[in-house]
């Protein structure tokens, strides 16, 4: 009788301990993104990339998470049209500027940098105009300038140069349909010199079947994320 009671108590304590551990370890119930895909074009093979430029007319993706949602950039399974100067081959350092779409009604410009594996957004700007916009990041006098439509948005002094430049579509949302968007007039600078059109252009990442890409020319890349179950 006594042995049986002890046995039951032991089992109860073990279950209690296990439950306590599970609850304490689980944290928030929110899951992180399982969908993360790219359609990206690249110019590489040169020495000391110090600028990337593109022209783009965004269209709001369909299928975004219905609003209202928190008006916080980088949340709500975002979709990005963006461009990078990647500083090292490990891709732990870069500068970047692009557009982000969260849930319905959310769109923003963003610019920032990453250093030693940590990403630092510099700033964001809400509700940019859905028109043809010109994006450039370039370095002059060891200072990186983040410009949109020729207007300076931020600077970041940093004596670093890129190993390549990328532009394209990055998505954390597996349910959207973006339609075709062109990243065109793709240009770059080397060693803080003049702007030149990309010439060694190639598709660096195309995560099918959702992500689509057409290299129209060395300076024009069309990207799209197709709705689930549909072809490009």
């Amino acid at each position, binding site marked *: 009788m006594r042995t049986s009671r002890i046995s039951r*108590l*032991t089992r109860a*304590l073990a279950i209690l*301990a*296990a439950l*306590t*551990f599970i609850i*304490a*370890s689980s*944290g*928030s*119930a*929110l*899951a*992180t*993104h399982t969908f*993360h895909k*790219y359609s*990206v074009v690249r110019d590489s093979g040169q020495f000391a990339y110090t600028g990337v430029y593109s022209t783009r007319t965004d269209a709001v993706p369909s299928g975004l998470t219905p609003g209202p949602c*928190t008006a*916080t*950039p*980088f*949340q*709500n*399974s*975002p979709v*990005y049209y*963006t461009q*990078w100067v*990647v500083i090292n*081959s490990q*891709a*732990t350092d*870069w500068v*970047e500027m*692009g557009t*982000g779409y969260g849930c319905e009604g959310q769109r923003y410009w*963003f610019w920032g*940098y*990453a*250093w*030693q*594996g*940590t*990403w*630092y*957004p*510099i*700033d964001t700007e809400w509700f940019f105009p859905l028109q043809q916009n010109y994006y450039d990041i370039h370095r002059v006098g060891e200072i990186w300038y983040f410009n949109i439509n020729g207007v300076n948005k931020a*600077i*970041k*002094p*940093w*004596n670093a140069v890129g190993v390549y430049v*990328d532009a394209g579509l*990055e998505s*954390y949302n597996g349910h959207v349909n973006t339609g075709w968007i062109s990243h065109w007039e793709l240009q770059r600078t080397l060693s803080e010199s003049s702007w030149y059109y990309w010439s060694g252009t190639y598709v*660096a*990442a195309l995560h099918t079947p959702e992500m689509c890409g057409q290299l129209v020319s060395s300076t024009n890349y069309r990207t799209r994320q197709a709705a689930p179950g549909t072809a490009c």
Partner: protein
Amino acid sequence: MKAILLASALIAATACGDSARALSGGTSSLFDATAQQRCEAERPNVTGYGRVDRLTAAFSLTAGDLARWMLTRHGPLGPQGTSRWADYPATELLALCYFDGVFSGFPRPAAAAGRPPYDRIAIVAVGSSGHVLDAAGYRADLPATRPLIP
């Protein structure tokens, strides 16, 4: 029997340790009381970045001090010299909060796509509600330590 009780207590204590420390502010050098309250209040607004396991550190800083720290925090070889907080009233009190968990959804180059989600974010809580994301990274590269103001 005593051994089982002791083991159960140890397991529970280990599992709850971090949360308990965070709530009580037991690791006092990592938790300024005012900032801790403000950061805890902001926790629901950071769950959109991913799964929040705990508040790891909370520091009260003026906008002026925060700006000064950010201007030089990467050292002489890293990016330099700008901070949005330089435009704020220098004496405005802000809370710098570090949360650990699993965070994704941030832009990154395709070459970095295979890396695991970040496990730490830093935010600056502003006013009585709202925040600005300061950084997203890995614990090894983004220490949750009190900023050294130059």
